[in-house]
Each structure stands twice: as structure tokens, then as C-alpha cells.
């Protein structure tokens, strides 16, 4: 690798936070602060500060045009790493060198003002993201076309639906020109059709030879886009390399059946957060209390979904998508297809489904669960990539199936040689 191939170099990066006051300490300035606080000392005895390393000894290099996916559980330091890379916060130790213009998208619509019109917000948001006025003007039509809000350009965005708002915000961000893109879970916004468009745009970025650092909980996306993955565990690099291997390791660690810390639903929720008429409060296989279950190969699979209904549901649709560890869809169940719709009064309800004749290859399986308005694709609440069960091979000699060779279905077969 020659020098000029490198786009991002991160060496020994560490970021320390002080617990409690969330400050970073140990400077002359800190001393002044202590002096200011001194008069209060006699009243409150402050315990010695506790520190936590949000990032520790993170080292990696990215070549030009490479897409790096960062994965890890919530609180593993992914966002902190992005914040350091995008210069929002300073590292406590280590060094970062970036070769080229950087655009960072830690959120879509940063700086959008509800009182300003769509047109005005495009210019404002563009300027905040580092675009020049001329640059924005040049791309204006493109941005508007992408966002699909032409008709409402001169309406204050406070009157926009949340979907329109997000589309406009993403459209501005998608038209940034830079050699290095840093993005945090902002890729999937809006309805299904727009999400597809967003992902297409992200794919374009990757193909156009731009270097990217992406954070996502969507493992399928990581598989598709990233050339390399970095798995962060409690601020440290747990694995780094081939996406397939790194994702496999991450998933196996996070859904270990022996793990007492059963994954909670919250980290997997992707629904619109405000004013849900219904929320998914539990997803499980077998018995609700037991966490990730082991399922014998070929045995019927029973799944349960707990719903908390706040506003009466008049015919909602429940969808369950089972995916394997590679993020491939194995089974898609629409309750609608079986003429099963949800007519539920407010309160807690449990929906169960029994799946038969499903002979899955051994391995870990994940569920996307969504409650949708039946007539439209609008989702009330969505849970994505939630680990639900593990299929055991029950003594069959098929270790090879655990390797990602694409096997999904494991039918009963009989081999025979005829003389």
C-alpha cells in the first residue's frame, strides 16, 4: 500500500469520558474550574471522578474507495468513533489523519428550522454541512427531484409530514461532494420505496470510489456495501476484516444462548418513534421468558409477538421476516395473506404463529417484525434483526452447513450407490 492510497488512518485512538459530569478532564482549565467550585466543596463532598474509556486503542487504515462498516452493540463506541472522525469531539489520545474532503452525516436534517420553507432549509442545511452557496444552487434541482417534495418547496417544513421532512433532509445530505463520507445509521429513512432509493444512493457512493465509514445495525446492508468491517466491543476493536467473518463473530457473541443478558428489544426498534398507536413489546420463539431458543432441525417453530395497543386497531397487518446470519431472507410471513388481520382494542395482546414444514439449516436466525396499516405500507412499529432462535443440527454430521455456503433449506435426502 503506497502512501497515496490511504484515505483514513487511525492510530491508537482513545476517548475518555468522566462519568457523572460527562466532562473530559486533567487540564489547567480544569484547575480553574475546581477553584470556582471550591466554595461549594464544604457543602458537598464530591467523590473522586470515575473515568470510562468510550474508545480505547482503536487502530485501522482505510484505502481510497474502501467502505468500512462499523458494527457493535449499543454503547460500544460506534458513535463516539464517528464523532472523533468528524472532528466534533477531540480524542484523548491517538491520532487520525484524513486525506481528502470529509462530509459527516451523524443525523439527517441537522439545523433544519421548522419555520423556514423547504427551499430555505435546503440552503441552510447545505451550508451547515459544508457546501458552498454556488454548489447548492447548482445541485438544487437535483436535490428537489430526489426529495419528491417539489410542490411544497415554499411551505414551512413544520407543515411537512415526517416522511417529507426526512426525504428532504436526506436529499441534501446525499448530494454532498466529498472524498470521504462518514455516516451513522441515517441510511434508512422514509417509507419502503424511499428507503430503497436511499440505499441505492449509498451504493452509488460506494461504487463511485468514495471512501466511506458507515455505522449500521442492518447486517444485510453491511454485507452488501462494506468491503471491511470493524466490530467494536466496549470501545475496543474486537474484530476487523472480512465483513462475513466479522459479522458472524459479532452475531455469535451477541446472541449466545447462554448469555444471561438477553437482548432487549429497544436496540432493534426502527419504528417512527412518536405517537405509535401500537408498539411491539416482545418477540420470542417458544416460551416468552426463555430468550433465544434452540430449535431442533425440522421441528415446528412457534413464535410470539407481544403488542401494546394504545389506539384501537382496525385491521392491521403483522409481518414476520426470518433471516439467517448472512442477512438473507428465509421466510416472509404476512398475516394478511392468511386473512388474519388485527382488530384489537387498547391493551396488551399476544399474537402467536406456528410455522411447520420448515427445515432450516443449522445456524442463528433473526426476525424483522412489523405492524403495518393494512391498506398501506405505512409501518406503525418495526423491529429489525432481532435474534430469535438457533437451529441445532441434532447430531447430524453436517458441520459444513454452518459455514456460509448459502444453504438455507435442509431437506431429508438419501444417497445411494447402485452397482
Amino acid at each position, binding site marked *: 500500500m503506497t502512501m*497515496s492510497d490511504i484515505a483514513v488512518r487511525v492510530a491508537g485512538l482513545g476517548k475518555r469520558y468522566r462519568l457523572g459530569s460527562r466532562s473530559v478532564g486533567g487540564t489547567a482549565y480544569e484547575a480553574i474550574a475546581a477553584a470556582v467550585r471550591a466554595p461549594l466543596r464544604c457543602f458537598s463532598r464530591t467523590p473522586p471522578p470515575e473515568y470510562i474509556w468510550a474508545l480505547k486503542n482503536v487502530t485501522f487504515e482505510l484505502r481510497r474507495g474502501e467502505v468500512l462498516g462499523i458494527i457493535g452493540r449499543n454503547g460500544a463506541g460506534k458513535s463516539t468513533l464517528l464523532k472523533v472522525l468528524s472532528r466534533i*469531539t477531540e*480524542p484523548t489520545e491517538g491520532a487520525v489523519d484524513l*486525506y*481528502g*474532503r470529509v462530509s459527516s452525516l451523524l443525523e439527517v436534517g*441537522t439545523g433544519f428550522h421548522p419555520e*423556514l420553507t423547504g427551499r430555505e432549509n435546503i440552503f441552510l442545511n447545505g*451550508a451547515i454541512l459544508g457546501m458552498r452557496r454556488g454548489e447548492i444552487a447548482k445541485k438544487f434541482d437535483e436535490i428537489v427531484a430526489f426529495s419528491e417534495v417539489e410542490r411544497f418547496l415554499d411551505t414551512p417544513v413544520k407543515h411537512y409530514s415526517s416522511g417529507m421532512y426526512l426525504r428532504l433532509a436526506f436529499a441534501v445530505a446525499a448530494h454532498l461532494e466529498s472524498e470521504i463520507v462518514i455516516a451513522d445509521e441515517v441510511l434508512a429513512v422514509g417509507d419502503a420505496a424511499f428507503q430503497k432509493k436511499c440505499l441505492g444512493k449509498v451504493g452509488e457512493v460506494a461504487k463511485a470510489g468514495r471512501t466511506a465509514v458507515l455505522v449500521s445495525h442492518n447486517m444485510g446492508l453491511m454485507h452488501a456495501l462494506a468491503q471491511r468491517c470493524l466490530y467494536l466491543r466496549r470501545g475496543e476493536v474486537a474484530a476487523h476484516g472480512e465483513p462475513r467473518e466479522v459479522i458472524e463473530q459479532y452475531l455469535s457473541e451477541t446472541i449466545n444462548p447462554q448469555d444471561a443478558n438477553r437482548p432487549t428489544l429497544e436496540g432493534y426498534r426502527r419504528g417512527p418513534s412518536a405517537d405509535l398507536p401500537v408498539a411491539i413489546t416482545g418477540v420470542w420463539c417458544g416460551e416468552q421468558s426463555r430468550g433465544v431458543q434452540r430449535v431442533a432441525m425440522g421441528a415446528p417453530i412457534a413464535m410470539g409477538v407481544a403488542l401494546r395497543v394504545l389506539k384501537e386497531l382496525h385491521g392491521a397487518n403483522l409481518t414476520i421476516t426470518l433471516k439467517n446470519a448472512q442477512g438473507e431472507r428465509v421466510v416472509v410471513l404476512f398475516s394478511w395473506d392468511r386473512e388474519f388481520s388485527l382488530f384489537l382494542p387498547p391493551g396488551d395482546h399476544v399474537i402467536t404463529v406456528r410455522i411447520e414444514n420448515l427445515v432450516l439449516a443449522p445456524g442463528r436466525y433473526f426476525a424483522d417484525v412489523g405492524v403495518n396499516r393494512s391498506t398501506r405500507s405505512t409501518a406503525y412499529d418495526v423491529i429489525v434483526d432481532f435474534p430469535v432462535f438457533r437451529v441445532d443440527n441434532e447430531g447430524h454430521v453436517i458441520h459444513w452447513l454452518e459455514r456460509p455456503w448459502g444453504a438455507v433449506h435442509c431437506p431429508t435426502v438419501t444417497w445411494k450407490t447402485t452397482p
Partner: protein
Amino acid sequence: MTEPVRAVAADAAETGSDPPATPTIRIRPHSGLAPLRLREVWEYRELLYFLAWRTIKVRYKQTLLGAAWAILQPVFAMVVFSLIFGRLVGMASDGIPYPLFVYAGLLPWQLFAQSVAESANSLVNNEHLLTKVYFPRFVIPASTILVSLLDFTVAGAVLAGLMGYYGIAPAGAVWAVPLLVLQAVGTALGVGLWLAALNVRYRDIRHVVPFLIQGWLFLTPIVYPSSLVPRGWHLALALNPMTGVVEGFRWALLGTKPELGGALGISAIITLVVLVSGVLCFRRMERTFADLL
């Protein structure tokens, strides 16, 4: 920082050449004094305009009187002061009609006070920007001053009207007005940067600012002429940079004789000290903003 990078990017696209061998952005932990990077602030000047533009656009949305508020605030203060100090107290005003006398002082004062108050809260108010996007943080307090300057210009029209009404022609030293505005802005920026940076860590500042401004108003010869202050106190009066600005305004526009004379040089020096220390303090504390907000 952005400009040279962009040039390189354009080259790379056209000729397919490699990006620079030296990093365009180096991120290192810092200690001690941070470099000023004024050039970077210059690169982000458009953002500065846009933020000011946003404030102005949004401020008068859904208001009945709109931009008239920029005039009403100083005019209202002038009326109140004229009634209380001009009529009731019968305050001396260096031979100038009291309303005009007090308004000529209030005009630069409003510029200063508004700049300080707005910039002191600017970082906390823009928390969502500071924790999500990178840009030189200096742009945020600086943009509030740009807004105050606009209000100042609008309110200045009233002064011209008052001078016409009282039949007072501008004195010969009108040329000095831009310099005095510069001093007011410099002082406000210095104080504002100090307060804005401290406000991130100690939210007490938010509550201190109104008192600070009110006290400062009466320590500055706005409602009273400095000739009313005993000679022995003149040096103390001149330590306040706003004394120089207010006295200077009346001298430049209304032709009053500046009572303090040479002592005003001191106030210019103080302005410089406040500004430089404010910028240094701000740069020093800037790196922890995102962690503290």
C-alpha cells in the same frame, strides 16, 4: 481548510491523479493554547451569513410588527429614560436635547448589549448543531453579532430622524463612527466569547447575563453625561470600553466635547485585551464543547 482540498478534489476528478500525500485533516489531542485557525473561519464565512440570515428570517415569523421591533426596543428605552431622567430628574445633557442625547448613547449600547446577550447563549441554543456537525465554533457567536449589526443599522435611521427633528447637523467627525462601531463590536465579541464558552460548562452564566448588562448600562455614561462624574473618577470611567464608544458617538455625531479626552485611549486598549483573551479562551475551551453540551 476546505478550499485547498476542494481544488485538489477537482484535479483528481479531471486528471485521475492521487489525493495529497499529506493529510488534509489531522486530528490530535491538544493541550495548551490551540492555534487560532482564522483562515478556517474565513472558509466558513458563508455559514456565518446563513446562520445570521436564519435568525433574522425566523425572528419575525408570526409577529405582527415584524422588523419594527428592531426600532421599537431602543425607541422605547429612549422614551422611558427621557421621561424619568430628562423630565423628572432634569439631568444635564451637554446642551443637547435629552432624547437625542440619550438615544445617541443607547444606539451603540444596544448593539453591544444585544450582541453580548445573544452570543452568550448562542452555543447552548445551538447544541444540536455543535454535537452533530463540525465547523469552527467561532461562527456561531460571530453570527449573532452580524444580526445585532443589522438591527443597529435599522435603529440608526431613527437617530438620523431625531437629529433632523432637533435640527442638529452631524458633526465633522462622522468618519469616526465606523471605528467606534468596530470598538463596540470588538468589545461585545470579546465579552460574548468569554460568556458563551463559560456558559457551556456553567449554565449559571445564562442567569448572570441580564444583571451584567443592566449594571453595565448604568456604569456607562448613557443616561448621564460624563461631565457629571467627578474628575477623580474619570480614569475608572475610562476603563470601561463602552464609555469610549458612547462618548465617541456623541462627539462624532452631535459634536459634544469629549470630557475624558486622552483617557479614551485606555478604553481602546481594554477592548483589545478583552477581545484577544476572549478569542484565546474560546479556542481553549472549544474542544470540550461537544462533550459538555
